[in-house]
């Protein structure tokens, strides 16, 4: 599976709470796309002052159908690029590169998994849950957000999970609190492994919980990216390899999904002194 660049076309865009869900006709991307893959979208056309792509997790990718291949993603308006994206309308052209990155690894056996999503971090977990189920896994879910408007995928998740918990910071939906307040209970129902996607502090907390329970976790991280295809080295984070050596690895090609116990959460945003090639003395 190799990524492709497609001059696609917006099929639909709709509001989902505080988010926007967009479906784009972009044939070729779906081939080989798996849960956890992401796409990178060109912003503003050739005369735009924004020269970099924006990365979004795939919610779904269909490689055939009436429209001959579509991708769906959900996004929050954060800066100018996502503001531009929110103004796109059906039939507008959209340049998409994907599928990118390394997807979630699926267990070989029909285990019991918990998926944990924070905000739009639930995006890649829906397709993941579906695939886990189709392999005979039991899937439970914990979704959290600051407010109900920033919950994503709760209905879909409910349909495909055995148990589900929702938390919001303001208590507007589900329990007031954070995903990690309810995750122990979920794990204690017999979970064998955890999948998580969301803000870095959440991933760190989930990783610590999974470690405390002695079960493996996979986390999909979000680092600022310039290229998304592995050539620029902007998207790195400290990850401990199987050889015990910490390296600054590219989250766009070696991630965004990592084994939680390998990510040096404590050192995110720094180059830990024991990383290969550290410390930085010069340019």
């Amino acid at each position, binding site marked *: 599976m190799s990524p492709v660049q497609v001059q696609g076309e917006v099929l639909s865009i709709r509001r989902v709470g505080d988010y926007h869900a967009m479906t784009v006709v972009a044939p070729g991307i779906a081939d080989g796309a798996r849960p956890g893959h992401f796409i990178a979208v060109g912003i503003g056309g050739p005369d735009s002052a924004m020269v970099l792509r924006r990365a979004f997790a795939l919610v779904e990718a269909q490689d055939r159908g009436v429209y001959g291949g579509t991708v769906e993603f959900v996004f929050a308006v954060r800066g100018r690029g996502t503001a531009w994206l929110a103004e796109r309308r059906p*039939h507008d052209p959209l340049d998409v590169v994907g599928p990118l990155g390394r997807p979630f690894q699926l267990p070989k056996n029909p285990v019991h998994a918990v998926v944990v999503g924070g905000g739009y971090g639930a995006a890649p977990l829906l397709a993941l849950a579906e695939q886990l189920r189709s392999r005979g896994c039991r899937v439970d879910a914990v979704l959290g957000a600051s407010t109900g408007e920033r919950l994503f995928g709760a209905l879909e998740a409910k349909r495909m999970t055995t148990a589900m918990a929702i938390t919001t910071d303001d208590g507007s939906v589900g329990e007031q609190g954070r995903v990690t307040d309810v995750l122990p209970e979920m794990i204690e129902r017999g979970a064998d492994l955890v999948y998580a996607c969301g803000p870095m502090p959440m991933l760190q907390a989930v990783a610590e919980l999974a470690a405390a329970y002695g079960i493996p976790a996979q986390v999909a991280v979000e680092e600022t990216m310039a290229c998304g295809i*592995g050539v620029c080295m902007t998207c790195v984070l400290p990850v401990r390899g199987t050889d015990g050596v910490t390296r600054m690895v590219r989250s766009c090609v070696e991630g965004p999904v990592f084994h939680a116990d390998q990510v040096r959460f404590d050192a995110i945003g720094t180059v830990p002194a024991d990383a290969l090639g550290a410390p930085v003395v010069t340019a």
Partner: protein
Amino acid sequence: MTDVALVAAPGHDDAALGVDPTTVLAGVAYANPVFTASGCAAAGQELAQFFDPSLLGGVVTKSIMLKPRSGRATPRMAETPSGMLNSIGLQGPGIDAFLERDLPWLAERGIPAVVSIAGETAEDYVKLATKVRGRKGLTMLEVNISCPNVESRGQVFACDPAAAAAVIAGVRRASSVPVFAKLSPDVTSIVDVAQAVVEAGAHGLSMINTTLGVDINTDTLRPTLANVTGGLSGPAVRPIALRCIWQVHAAMPEVPILGMGGIRSGLDALQFLAAGASAVSVGTAVFGDPHAPLRVLEELRSALAHRGFSSAAEVVGIAHRPVDARVPEGADPPGDLPAETLET
């Protein structure tokens, strides 16, 4: 419905087939004048997912140092109007891993490699040049002197003509292939630095490296980059790059130039050739469009064809010559000039 299309190798323009795209840099012939830029294409493997890098003039590899290097803390980049800042900090595997893994990959595929080297002392550069010497696939060295000189209070080599010359002199002695010095625009006189490195033995010049910039995050009110400053690249710097190339080519027309800085289209590349570059590197544009180098090449060939040129070589430096002194044979002067300005 608009057309939905898979972006692959750009369609060939028949007229462009008549244009000879070959270029010669310090005696080395390349199939065409479009290269990747150091640090914007790694060592070519990743771009090969999108197009065949052997279709380019060559691949300029990410600057490599003697030892593995972790680079700087994140965030390492900030998008700015028509550009970006980066402070990667030369993260890389070190020369040994590069020679074992990356250069052979290029050599096996017949992709001409321009190996970029970077050091902390003049001695580092010589060691690197010595290690690379005679390796299969190597066609040229690009010496990234925009690095702090640890022996001179971190003053960047490229900002000090004497230090720059010392690096180049050493590399020149150690190298069996042409040596190009990559210059920084952040100097009072780029011509002075260019002259110093050419006198020290540089066969050619790469221009420009990024120019130093800062971005402030308007939420945290702290610098966006963990490292505070970063290098500005992308279309925003194109006029600065063209100015550097213009000045240096005017002063030393015989010195070959590999030009870069903001090239995103074939017409951009044409500007660089006309200003005096014999070839160009496409850098930041790759992040917005992974096909950019190949697209730039095809667009450049078409642009040359439509202006009546039969080779890329004949436009090198043409902007320095008065218009009436250089209409090419069989040309349609004045190219794409809008008919409007000519009528009645």
